[in-house]
């Protein structure tokens, strides 16, 4: 707005000056023409009879000084102010030429006009230069400037006022919105009050949508916490009960039996705790976005190596299937490792004693598929969808330490990587858990 004001001011200033010059240049021309008309040659002499009107016209600018000079052919001085300056680069012409100069320490606006004399004995251009100080011009120009500036300031003030009014009016639904958000109770759901302003409607819709998503996350979290606490309490009270019973047991064999049960419960508890912590870890890492270039081959080999070592005393067979040794993807290596380890643990847990577990990679265009195959019972087709949800333990009828957290962790990690988690029943037997991840982050 300031720039607009400055630009317009400069324009007005120029306009005022030009108008003032135009008006008073006419007087100068009139005066110069009146003088040049009175230049005659007589007996070979050029004579000027300065007309009274010449100075009378210029006294219409009542406070201005006037200087003039008349020169004959060959620039010879005839009358007036001998040293009154001519314009630079002047070619004699009958049409008036205006110029600015200085004379007697004052800025002067001047005009020069010439006339050709072709009389016996006298031949050549005679010239009239007449100049005027700038008081009247400046006064007129200031008057115009002041008037125009007043209008300009008025217009700009009006524009700013209406702009401020308009902005306030436009923003008022937003203010209302922020007020109603502020005044809402944390647990109050339901859509926000509607608005008439078209431009604000999408915003309200987005806020409502966001709140719905947030709420469903909160709901999930509540279920998670309820379920986790239930499982931990169940396991703890079971351990407690077994301990109480073990204390009163005097039979050595039965005591051993009890202790085995306690160990079993304890392992389940440990695993549950680990999975909960892992889930919290991957959820946190998802929120903080710790992505980097990961060499898949190295990562998978390391996981497999540690699994083999952990289950060296079992009959489980581990396989690795990868032809893409140099493959890298954008991923969070920590989450990915936890995720895969959980999937392998799941496979071990749900599979038979002589399980055969394969960790492998497929590449499909810009997608990388990491899969874990087992020889377990698989998941009934109608439950494949639900299985991915956390804590949705699959009813296999088999007594294992499953908590369902493993698939939940895998789902969270895949989502964080912008990928998908697929569960596929293999023929004739077994389950394939497949992480479909984009190679590069979008």
């Amino acid at each position, binding site marked *: *707005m300031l720039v607009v004001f400055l630009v317009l001011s400069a324009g007005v200033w120029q306009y005022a000056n030009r108008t003032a010059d135009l008006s008073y240049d006419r007087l100068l021309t009139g005066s110069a023409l009146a003088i040049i008309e009175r230049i005659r040659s007589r007996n070979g002499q050029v*004579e000027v*009879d300065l007309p009274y009107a010449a*100075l*009378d016209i210029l*006294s219409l600018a*009542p406070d201005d000084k006037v200087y003039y000079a008349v020169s004959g052919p060959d620039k010879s001085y*005839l*009358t007036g102010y001998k040293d009154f300056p001519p314009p630079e680069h002047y070619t004699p012409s009958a049409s008036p030429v205006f110029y600015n100069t200085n004379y007697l320490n004052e800025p002067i606006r001047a005009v020069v006009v010439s006339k050709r004399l072709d009389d016996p004995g006298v031949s050549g251009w005679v010239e009239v230069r007449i100049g005027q100080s700038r008081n009247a011009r400046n006064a007129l120009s200031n008057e115009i400037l002041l008037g125009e500036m007043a209008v300009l300031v008025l217009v700009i003030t009006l524009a*700013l006022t209406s702009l401020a009014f308009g902005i306030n009016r436009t923003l008022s639904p937003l203010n209302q919105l922020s007020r109603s958000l502020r005044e809402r109770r944390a647990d109050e759901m339901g859509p926000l009050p509607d608005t008439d302003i078209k431009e604000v409607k999408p915003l309200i819709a987005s806020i409502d949508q966001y709140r719905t998503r947030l709420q469903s996350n909160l709901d999930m979290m509540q279920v998670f916490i309820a379920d986790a606490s239930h499982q931990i309490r169940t396991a703890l009270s079971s351990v407690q009960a077994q301990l109480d019973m073990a204390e009163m047991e005097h039979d050595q064999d039965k005591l051993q039996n009890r202790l085995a049960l306690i160990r079993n419960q304890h392992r389940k508890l440990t695993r549950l705790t680990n999975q909960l912590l892992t889930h919290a870890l991957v959820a946190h890492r998802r929120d903080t976005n710790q992505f980097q270039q990961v060499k898949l081959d190295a990562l998978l080999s390391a996981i497999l190596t540690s699994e083999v070592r952990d289950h060296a005393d079992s009959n489980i067979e581990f396989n690795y299937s990868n032809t893409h040794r140099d493959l890298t993807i954008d991923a969070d290596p920590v989450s990915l490792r936890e995720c895969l380890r959980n999937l392998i643990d799941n496979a071990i847990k749900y599979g038979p004693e002589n399980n055969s577990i394969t960790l492998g990679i497929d590449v499909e265009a810009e997608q990388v598929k990491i899969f874990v195959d087992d020889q377990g019972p698989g998941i009934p087709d109608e439950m494949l969808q639900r299985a991915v949800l956390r804590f949705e333990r699959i009813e296999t009828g088999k007594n294992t330490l499953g908590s369902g957290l493993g698939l939940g962790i895998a789902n969270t990690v895949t989502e964080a990587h912008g990928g998908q988690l697929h569960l596929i029943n293999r023929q004739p037997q077994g389950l394939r858990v497949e992480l479909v991840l984009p190679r590069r982050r979008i």
Partner: protein
Amino acid sequence: MKIAIRAAIVCLLSITALQAAERRTPSDQGFEQFTTPNSVKRLDIYSATDTRAIKPIIEAFERRHPYIDVRYNEYESTTLYNALTSGKIKGADVVLSSAMDLQVKLVNDGHARTLDIPESIDLPEWSHWRNEAFGFTFEPVVIAYNKASFENAPVPSSHESLVDALRNDPERYYEKVGSYDIRLSGAGYFFATHDTVVSSISGRILESLARAASHTYCCTSDMLDDLGEGKLALAYNVLGSYALARARKDSRIGVIMPEDYTLVMSRIALVPKQTDNFATAQAFIRFLLSKEGQQIIASKSNLIALRPEATGPSSIAAISEKRQLRFHPIKIGLPVMTFQDEMKRERFIREWSQLFDARTP
């Protein structure tokens, strides 16, 4: 946006400030600073005005400001102009002259300083220019006559009737008419040239004057002397102030203010750039124009006061009493410079000389 609004406000304020600056009111009197007797201030007045005529005003000014010592230097108007522009006069604080054209030229050529004259001093529109040149008298240009010469004939009452009388009654006027020698008198040149501006018969007037073999003079007072003694019957274009003052003392002399038009000129005061005592000089001119100064001119001097509210024998009211007059004040401004054009002046004087040198003595 806040910045822009602030800028607009600043702008509004500065415009208000500008307007406020324009409305400044100068102090009515600027005399206070001269009342302390620390030092005597000197004021050099260079003037083309009869010392006797101006004396009462200067004395009044000195009475009011005892610590200002006024030196008065009398010059002929053209000599004064030449001396000022050529630098022969140094240290002039005030210049007074009846040669309006030369005074205006001094202003135009940048020799004068701008004065601050309080608005309470009410001056006619025509009597000042650029706040530099200020007329302070009102002096009609008149025809004076010897009453005895017109005992049996009507006195010409206008320019027209003067031309007729000179033509129809040559015996009465032959060698009995006086007028200015425009080569010697700046005022005479000024009056003669302004006749040509105002009147279409100015050429005929000059011709008839030349034909009557009129005597030419340097000064009004000489013409008035010869009128009183009867050497002249009539004097054309003399300074009304002197003629009226003389007529009050010398009953042989009468004064006519031509009915068709009576040129009015004004003595012009200005402060030259060379002054060292600007404040004192400005105070003197304020005094000249003030009610007090004008009243002294009207009541005590031979000059005639410019401001119509002044009363006394030398006031506008007194001189225009009983008569319906067509006063034609010559406006102080650029146009009076026209006849100071070198070539125009040469030509006018040449033509005048041709007429008057050819007359038979």
